[in-house]
């Protein structure tokens, strides 16, 4: 898995293939979809510039996570932001273990996710769209959907768990 041609194109292709994991890690650090997007893009610029630093025997994800983390730390230093609440290695383990737990190619998983999304209620889809496509914070979404913040957390969480189950179930059938 880790033995691949360490050319620029190969690194970029790998970064492209691993973008869900990289974005997931960015979101874990920032806990804000908009900031995660910025971090994800800034890190990609660095990955494109420093591709030669990736050693052939080095796991790509670990290397990319380090770049994302350093980019995040630099932005914290620049803007005096609060540090992420979790230790880097804890968050890294969470994402890595979930990646290792996954089966099948990413493209297939996304297709299943798209199909599973259709099974959600319109309200749940709206909540997910507002949170993860438009990047609104939960208090604003709760206001817009005329519901309490805790109820929104439960709706988002229930929807996400349902999606996870659905994706796994449809992957095994």
């Amino acid at each position: 898995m880790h033995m691949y041609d360490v050319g620029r194109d190969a690194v970029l292709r790998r970064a492209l293939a691993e973008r869900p994991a990289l974005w997931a890690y960015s979101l874990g650090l920032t806990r804000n979809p908009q900031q995660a997007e910025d971090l994800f893009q800034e890190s990609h610029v660095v990955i494109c510039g420093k591709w030669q630093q990736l050693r052939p025997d080095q796991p790509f994800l670990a290397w990319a996570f380090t770049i994302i983390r350093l980019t995040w730390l630099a932005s914290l230093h620049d803007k005096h932001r609060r540090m992420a609440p979790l230790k880097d290695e804890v968050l890294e383990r969470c994402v890595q273990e979930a990646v290792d737990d996954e089966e099948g190619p990413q493209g297939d998983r996304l297709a299943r996710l798209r199909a599973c999304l259709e099974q959600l209620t319109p309200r749940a889809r709206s909540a997910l769209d507002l949170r993860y496509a438009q990047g609104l914070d939960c208090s604003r979404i709760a206001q817009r959907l005329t519901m309490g913040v805790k109820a929104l957390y439960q709706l988002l969480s229930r929807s996400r768990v349902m999606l996870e189950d659905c994706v796994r179930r449809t992957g095994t059938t």
Partner: protein
Amino acid sequence: MSDDQVLIERFLDNALSEADSAALQERLMAEPDLRLALGRALLTLAGLREVLQAQQRQRSKRVRRALAGGPAFRITFLRVAAAVLLVLLPLAWWQLGRSSPQVPDASPELATSHGIDGDLLAMDEAAQLEHLRQQAGQQRHEPLSATLLAPETTGDTALLFRHQAAAGLVRAAIVQGRVVDLLLAEETRSLALIQAGQEPALRQAAQTLAGQFASERQAGQVRLLAFRILPRGTPRDQALILISLNEDLQGRNRL
């Protein structure tokens, strides 16, 4: 719904206190299931982001494609737009017809300050119109002057008359199927009125107008008529109406 799921959601929303975050970290180090749950949550959200953004791109693409559509699409679009206008414009026209004869929302004080006869306000609509006709010495009220509508006639008054006429022309145009052209013409006329920018002069002209009538009562009646035609018009609109009515009435008196 387990408490852990809500905990993860609150973490993702950046809504945990430092103490809660520290407790979560301790648990994550000790509990593989919780690590997996958080990792899966993050990955699911990453997948969702891809799917939702792809759907958004798809929607934008459809809109762009529609906007940059070929001749066939444009014809369809114009047909649909014309069909919508065919339904909406008569409705709007009917609504205007219903609302314009009503006495405007102006209070009696405002009406009096504009020289409107208090007796008139108390009358019903039909009686008001009849009273106005009698006072103005008219047997009937012609809507527009053919001379003022002639293309060679210039000036604000002519513009106003054309503007007013445009509404009627749009209605006629619906029948003739030339909706888009005439709506554009209507917009051009409105812009011309706005760009004339002669509000102070028009106000002055409106004030002068009152003195040109035989009596203050007659001037007030004309003002009322102006209110009736453009109940929600700006002072500039009303001034324009007053001027046009004055010319119209003077023309009739000469006749």
